[in-house]
């Protein structure tokens, strides 16, 4: 028994056929596997490799650094700073956890949960595009958020660059600001490479020069894992090209002087709105452009909250409106330039023609009063313009008629936008007989033409139009487009677009006529219509204006704006206004100024004192006291 197993069993049934069958089956199995593998890897290897790459890689935009903005002297007006943003990728945020995540994130960021949800819901783009919830988040908060990924699914923290405007309100109306692209704009701009959470220039030159400033976004190929998380950047497909930089025509120093003068005048006279513009009449360059009240454009760059925005929008003095270009006002007596130029050019009057001026002019049964109820007696253009005689210009306007008056207004650039490099410019209104029929279905009445001659009635102009008209007067009849951007400089420092004055048209008027009007403007000063302006060492020619608007008060008086627009010769200390060499034209506008004297003139004087470093104080603080200066104008 023990050794039984040692004896081989001779006739073991080994079934060789079944071994062979098994072997063949095995060979078939491996043959099949090899064939299929060859099909996948050799015949279709490239196709599968391409599919593998395309499913795990995605082209991502590389934002280009936005171009910088300098003033004409090379002072930096805006810079790009890195800041933390918190974003949400809706596709990674389970619907059931939306409220919970919004609540938690709101707590960390100090936002309302409902605001967060409404940002997500109102943002264009696909569910896979991250939505910016908060910009300029403090680093500690950003770290807290990025460490709570489990409690905050779909929430990401990104470093982005945002604009910083070191001068804030000083330059806000010129520079504007950038902000998130809105849904409508995104639909329009998507094909030009804008991203759903992109930033775009929304006001000022940030908006008008968006294309130059933005640069060209690059592209990189990013490898992502199956859950969509970035693993690594594989390669740059296309480098980002930084945006071009702008050199403004603005001189920050002059902007400061203009702001300071306007602020002083507004405070002294208790005004709520005002404009001050300084230009070079030889080129159309705007050296300063101030509209008060202003706002801090950094609020927008950092991501303005709803409450902050509502506060700005609801402010009745409209700080977000650039009153120099986005609003129009009656020009008042400053508009007598148009009637005077037209009367001379059309031969209705000569420099020597004297017209009878009185307390009023009668037309039918209506009396048209002069501001001076005594009149000035027989008056030539110097007397009429210098004393700002209304009855003088009623007669000139009457001689010209509404349409010739409108023609000369257009010659000075009124009635259409100047084309300044700012968004939202309005055209103003210059009434002609056709305009009256179109707008009101009636012809112009003679009385309305009288009113138009002194810048009242239907006429409204923007401050930038008015200063540009006086710039044309000062430079000998060349109407330039006011410009804010001197040069555009490429990322490599080369000048892409050099400065070139942009002539709108040459006025169809003789130099003699314009010289007569410049001297008449000087007479305004020398006749002491503008009080002690003549005493200043700087020699000014110009025109003040008082323009009624709105509704009469209980005593039947209208509120009024006051203007002063003037210029100085190339040598500001030598009163030679026969030449056309002025380098400086300026305008002051005081909205709703119920002062004894003309607030515009005082503000202009304040600017001149600052700009020309005049030590002696020529300002008439008394004239800025409350009162109706109509009796003494």
């Amino acid at each position, binding site marked *: 028994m023990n050794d039984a197993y040692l004896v081989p069993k001779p006739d073991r049934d080994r079934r060789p056929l079944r*071994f062979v069958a098994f072997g063949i089956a095995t*060979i078939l199995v491996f043959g099949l596997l090899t064939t299929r593998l060859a099909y996948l890897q050799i015949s279709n290897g490239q196709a599968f490799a391409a599919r*593998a790459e395309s499913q795990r890689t995605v082209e991502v935009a590389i934002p280009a650094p936005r171009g910088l903005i300098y003033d004409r002297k090379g002072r930096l007006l805006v810079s790009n700073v890195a800041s933390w943003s918190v974003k949400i990728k809706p596709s990674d945020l389970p619907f059931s956890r939306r409220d919970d995540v919004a609540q938690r994130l709101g707590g960390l960021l100090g936002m309302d949960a409902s605001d967060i949800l409404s940002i997500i819901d109102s943002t264009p783009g696909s569910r896979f595009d991250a939505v910016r919830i908060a910009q300029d988040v403090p680093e500690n908060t950003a770290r807290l958020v990025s460490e709570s990924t489990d409690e905050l699914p779909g929430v990401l923290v990104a470093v982005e660059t945002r604009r910083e405007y070191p001068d804030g309100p000083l330059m806000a109306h010129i520079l504007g600001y950038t902000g998130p692209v809105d849904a409508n704009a995104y639909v329009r701009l998507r094909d030009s490479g804008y991203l759903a959470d992109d930033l775009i220039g929304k006001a000022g030159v940030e908006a008008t020069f968006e294309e130059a400033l933005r640069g060209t976004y690059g592209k990189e190929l990013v490898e992502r894992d199956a859950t969509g998380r970035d693993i690594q950047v594989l390669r740059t497909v296309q480098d980002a090209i930084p945006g071009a930089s702008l050199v403004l025509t603005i001189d920050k120093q002059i902007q400061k002087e203009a702001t300071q003068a306007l602020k002083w005048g507004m405070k002294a006279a208790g005004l709520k709105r005002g404009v001050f513009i300084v230009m070079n009449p030889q080129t159309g360059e705007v050296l300063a452009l101030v509209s008060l009240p202003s706002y801090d454009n950094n609020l927008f760059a950092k991501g303005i909250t709803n409450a902050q925005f509502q506060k700005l929008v609801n402010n009745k003095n409209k700080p977000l409106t650039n009153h120099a270009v986005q609003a129009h006002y009656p020009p008042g007596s400053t508009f007598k330039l148009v009637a005077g130029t037209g009367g001379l050019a059309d031969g209705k009057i000569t420099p020597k023609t004297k017209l009878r001026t009185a307390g009023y002019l009668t037309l039918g049964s209506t009396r048209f009063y002069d501001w001076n109820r005594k009149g000035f007696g027989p008056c030539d253009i110097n007397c009429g313009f210098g004393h700002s005689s209304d009855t003088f210009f009623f007669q000139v306007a009457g001689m010209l008629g509404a349409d010739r008056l409108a023609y000369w207004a257009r010659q000075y650039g009124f009635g259409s936008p100047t084309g300044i490099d700012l968004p939202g410019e309005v055209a103003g209104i210059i009434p002609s007989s056709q305009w009256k029929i179109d707008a009101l279905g009636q012809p112009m009445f003679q009385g309305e033409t009288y009113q138009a001659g002194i810048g009242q009635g239907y006429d409204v102009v923007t401050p930038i139009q008015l200063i540009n008209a006086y710039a044309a007067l000062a430079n000998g009849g060349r109407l330039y487009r006011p410009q804010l951007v001197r040069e555009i400089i490429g990322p490599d420092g080369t000048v892409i677009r050099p400065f070139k004055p942009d002539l709108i048209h040459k006025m169809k008027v003789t130099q003699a006529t314009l010289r007569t009007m410049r001297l008449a403007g000087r007479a305004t000063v020398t006749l002491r219509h503008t009080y002690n302006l003549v005493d200043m060492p700087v020699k000014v020619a110009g025109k003040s204006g008082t323009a009624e608007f709105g509704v009469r008060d209980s005593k039947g008086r209208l509120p009024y704006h006051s203007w002063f627009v003037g210029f100085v010769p190339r040598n500001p200390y030598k009163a030679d206004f026969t030449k056309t060499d002025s380098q400086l034209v300026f305008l002051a506008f005081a909205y709703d100024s119920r002062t004894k004297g003309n607030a515009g003139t005082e503000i202009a004087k304040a600017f001149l004192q600052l700009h020309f470093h005049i030590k002696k104080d020529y300002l008439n603080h008394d004239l800025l006291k409350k009162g109706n200066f109509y009796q003494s104008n």
Partner: protein
Amino acid sequence: MRVMRAEPSRFTDVTARSVGAVWRAYDLQLTTYVALLGAIGLVMAYTNSVEAGESVLTSGTTFTRALMWSGLSMVVFIVATVFDYRWLKTLSWPIWFVNIGLLLVTLAIGDGVGGSSRWVSIGPLTFQFSELAKILMITVLAAYLGNREGKLDSLGSILGACVLMGPPWILVMMQPDLGTSLVLVAILAGMLFMSGASLRWLVAMGLGALAAIPVAWTYILRDYQKDRILSFLNPAADTQGSGWQVYQAQITVGSGGFLGTGLTNGAQARGGFLPVQESDMVFAVLAQELGFLGALVVFLLFAALIWRILSAAWHSKDPFGTLFGAGLASMLVFQVFVNIGMVIGIMPVTGIPLPFISNGGASLVTLAVGLGIIQSVNIRQHRAEW
């Protein structure tokens, strides 16, 4: 198996003979192929470890666990070689009961994904006893069928084998582990075929099993198992859901091309596009990183190994050795075919590991036991001639 016959105790057999004689019978080729496949398994564990972002040599990574299991498997392989396989015939009933016991323990305390119970934790290690069940059932069936030599073409032998396989098969299905239960069926079918069982009855049984598929579909298969089969039948229908694995596996394999992307360079795997890349889907990573050429080398090693097992089975002087070899070869062919077939899209997704290469201790130890027994069979055949 009707008679539990104690074979004589000959623990001194091996030592009694000359070392040279033992070595002449020892199949060095088989051991070489096994070592090469094991090495490829370690290389894949390494590459998967790197791609999972692990620092490879610290404890607990895919690679260090694979190293540890390889070491243990070598010991098991040597012990199984030295051990006289003929004892297994004597011990077949206890082995059967131990197998049932282990599977019951697994059902009772096992862990697994989604409410299943597949793994039993032993200290820091987890072990899948259903893997061991394969080799234990090969042993039990080899002992049973070997004893019935001469009556193997009767229906009784077939039914008897089915009855032995029944309880463990049901316990595995209860875990549930469709993959292993299919392997058990393949082992049963392969061993019956090789034993010389009546082809008519086998075909009849096979048809019966086919007829049972609708029943199994309705009452036995879980939803996820049905999804896998459906997505295999039409992988393009749902590339984000069930078809995802199938689709991604094919992309992964295809993107390897002829020479592959190189080890640890499988971007597809690194991105997490390929689920269970270190276990059931390991061949996809291998095919991507080593290319068609590398995969072909693996096929050749498997084919050579199966040839050596069949050779041992053929030369075995007793039916146990023949049948054990047949069972082991059936298991290997089936697992290789189903696993790689799944990866390259010609078989449905089932949780069947690729022998040697899929990461998994139980699978490796089970193979070590089986191949050790084959070597034990090899070195004990020629005794009578000396």
